[in-house]
């Protein structure tokens, strides 16, 4: 069948039944195809200048001896390899396309039938639309594949490559053209033009970068401070109510607090979020200094064994939101930096390098928890301008 027109196909060689002689013939056949000029075998050469030449190559005396007329005037056969199977394949392909058509119609119907606006309705709509759409694509895809495999005659063609490097003459001609152009432009001969042109382009190239300057303000010392200041109340986040030490009936969990007046200000909260934890007496390792000491919590900044730390992880700034009451560990769920709440929130595991800064705290005249001052060091992730932490 198509072997005569389509040329050599490796798949046609079934080695198991061959005698050794046949095998060797096949081997040498496969080995010598690098030289297209001599390739008078049954290979079809694509891209040769004249189709007539290719045809004569194809119909040449080397032929393929399959007993078909040699003067075949086409590169691709027009009939399938297996006409009987093709008939059946045609029906299958048509069925696939019909399925795709009905699936497409079902998609359109589903669009109008299924409403949305609730979670359940949306999910039903999603199911109906998605499955009909997928079925339409599958029908089209399967149909096309069977079409190619069973209906289109099996061919394997060979196209010759040519070295990508241009011929020496072309390269030389290019060089000459390029040099002629350079000469004609006077670009090399007149250095003053060349230099002033380069000088002119530099500012023009830099200008767009300058234009980006107003993308944002300069950092200044903005990262060093938060909105916390002396006397600002700590509000229970969510309820937004001030907190009295007596509200803690017993030691226990962790509460997220925010500065009064900034409950809805994400820019402020991204730095000023605080966690407070109530401890039993004797659980916390205190220092009596008025500044942070490694491994210790500043006692003067606590109220009745209630300790306040920044909630913003010192690694890359996620909220350090997990607290394990039995071990008093604060864990950041992003990268598992772990801080010991009883020892000044020092790092005991993970990539963070610095403890969570402690918020100085006291109570105001009404007995509510308030800040004694801002944090005494920058909160959150490290940055270049940040100095030593303690």
């Amino acid at each position, binding site marked *: 069948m198509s072997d005569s027109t389509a040329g050599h196909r*490796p798949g046609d060689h079934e*080695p198991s039944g061959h005698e050794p002689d046949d095998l060797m*013939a*096949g081997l*040498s056949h*496969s*080995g*010598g*195809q*690098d030289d*297209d000029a001599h*390739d*008078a*075998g049954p290979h079809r050469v*694509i*891209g040769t200048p004249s189709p007539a030449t290719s045809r004569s190559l194809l119909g040449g005396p080397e032929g393929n001896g399959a007993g078909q007329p040699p003067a075949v005037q086409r590169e691709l056969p027009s009939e399938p390899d297996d006409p009987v199977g093709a008939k059946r394949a045609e029906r299958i392909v048509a069925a696939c396309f019909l399925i795709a058509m009905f699936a497409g119609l079902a998609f359109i119907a589903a*669009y109008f039938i299924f409403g949305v606006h609730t*979670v359940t309705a*949306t999910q039903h709509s*999603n199911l109906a*639309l*998605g*499955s009909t759409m*997928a079925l339409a*694509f*599958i029908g089209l*895809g399967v149909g*096309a*594949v069977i*079409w*190619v495999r069973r209906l*289109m005659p099996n*061919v394997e*063609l060979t*196209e*010759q*490559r040519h*070295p990508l490097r241009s011929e020496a003459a072309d390269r030389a001609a290019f060089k000459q053209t390029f040099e002629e152009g350079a000469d004609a432009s006077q670009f090399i001969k007149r250095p003053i033009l060349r230099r002033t042109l380069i000088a002119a382009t530099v500012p023009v190239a830099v200008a767009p970068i300058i234009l980006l300057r107003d993308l*944002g303000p300069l950092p200044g010392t*903005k990262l060093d401070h938060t909105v916390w200041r002396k006397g600002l109340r700590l509000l229970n986040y969510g309820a937004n109510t001030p907190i009295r030490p007596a509200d803690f009936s017993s030691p226990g969990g962790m509460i997220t607090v*925010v500065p009064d007046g900034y409950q809805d200000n994400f*820019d402020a*909260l991204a*730095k000023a979020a605080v966690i407070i934890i109530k401890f039993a007496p004797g659980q916390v390792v205190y220092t009596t200094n008025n500044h942070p000491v490694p491994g210790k919590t500043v006692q003067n900044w606590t109220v009745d064994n209630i300790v306040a730390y920044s*909630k913003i992880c010192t*690694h*890359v700034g996620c909220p350090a939101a997990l607290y394990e009451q039995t071990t008093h560990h604060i864990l950041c*769920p992003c990268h*598992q*930096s772990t801080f010991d709440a009883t020892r000044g929130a020092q790092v005991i*595991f993970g*990539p963070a*390098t610095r403890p969570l800064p402690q918020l100085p705290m006291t109570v105001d005249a009404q007995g509510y928890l308030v800040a004694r001052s801002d944090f005494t060091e920058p909160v959150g*992730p*490290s*940055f*270049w301008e*940040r*100095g*030593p932490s303690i």
Partner: protein
Amino acid sequence: MSMNKALEGTGGWLDDRLHGARGVRVFFRKIFPDHWTFLLGEIALYCFIILLLTGTFLALWFKPSMTEMVYHGSYIKLDGVRMSEAYASTLHITFDVRGGLLMRQIHHWAADLFVAAIMAHMLRIFFTGAYRKPREINWLIGIVLLTLSLLEGLFGYSLPDDLLSGAGLRITQGVLQSIPIVGTYLSFFLFGGQYPGHLIIPRMYILHVLLIPGLFMALIGAHLFIMFHQKHTQMPGVGRTDKNVVGTPMYPYFMAKTGAFFFFTFAAVTLAATFAQINPIWIYGPYNPLAISAGSQPDFYMGFLEGSLRMMPSWQWVVFGHTFAFNVFIPALVPLGIVMTGAALWPFLEQWITGDKREHHVNQRPRNAPTRTGLGLAMVSFYGVLWLEGANDVLADHFDVPLYTITEIARVAVFAVPILTYIIAKRICLGLQRKDQHLLQHGVETGIIRQLPSGEFIEETRPVSEELRAKLVGPERPALPVGASGADADVPPPGMRGGVGRAKAWLNKVVNENVPEDGHGNGYGANGHGDEGQAPAAIGSGDTEDGSGHH
């Protein structure tokens, strides 16, 4: 005959104006070799098209705005909740636009598949040596495309402004801020001030829908044009040489096949979007810098960066009042840098080491380049350790292993596993080479046992088939120029002298470590038997005992 009319009519009209008959004919007859791994790049291309289609649909409703509002929409659980317009419009697309949820989920799944397909495609290119001359430029374009796809994905999943994506954005900002000298400024410029500000979503949006897709289109266009111009590589096989392409023509075969493949890719992501929920942002809730959910995971392609950040020990220097946050910028930049820079330099390094400046169009089987395969798999395992560490909390939960233990193991494994992988992979490759040589020299075992007159039992073998031989042996190649790889010559050639030269010679020996061919089994022997007027082989290797398969 109506076809003729159509050709003469429309085709003729166009050709009168565009002179296309010849060029389009060549295009129609373009040959595409067949191998299932050649489809990986097509998956990436079709995902890109799907992303453009679904992304355009989503953009019709999405509001890239951080303006705060109170939600009163269909999703009653969030009724009265303050959120950004970006998040609210994503809820609107999900619950109020018919097909909106489907398009969102297809977009997300296609993005994941896009990155995965690029990675798989590049691994195929690497392990088969398809990046070799003349395809280095396309390899470099591929590396840029992969990097852009990671960035595009990160921006894309940050846009809905939900709690999960906000955490990712916060981490991105923390990493940016840690970069020495310029980090704080970069962060302030990108976010328009302090984190989170009100500008980052509109800024990421325009990068996500215009700038990066534009770069994608330009680079994908260049990638395809170069591939078209240089013609496709092919796998070793009968009749396949470095001077030809064997396969099926573009029209109608490849057109139909690749069209079908587009539909399959689209069907696959549609099925995923129909039956596998992805990124249910209404469950996560709107972003809030105070809240986070435990066990949250980024999209798979960000997992290695997450793991890298998680496993890094807490190293930091403070010098003259300036902070070097090694704990952040090293894990964020170095692993990615190693993989991408290594991949970009490798083709040139390999050329320098081997002195091989020839064009290669027939791919290598990975086993036939043991050092390359070992290095590639070492990189894959390096990536794999980082990626698994990125899910250390999930692993700890599932397998009931202490969390810190996993991190401590990962800190060792990230160095040990790639080294072990290199050694093991290289040994396996050499073992497979021996198996191939055995097959070539002794033939295929038939299972037929014969007793010799002497009483000895032997197993009959039959010669390997032509196809298998062609696959095992690969194409014939011209010899390298003298001195290009003279590692074991008595007198080193000029390029191999001196310190650099000796290093090169040693590297050359490592890179070229293969099972010796024992004077037979190199597969060139068959060329000696020219018939049917074929050209004699460029290199005859004399005796052709191999392949005849007798004892």
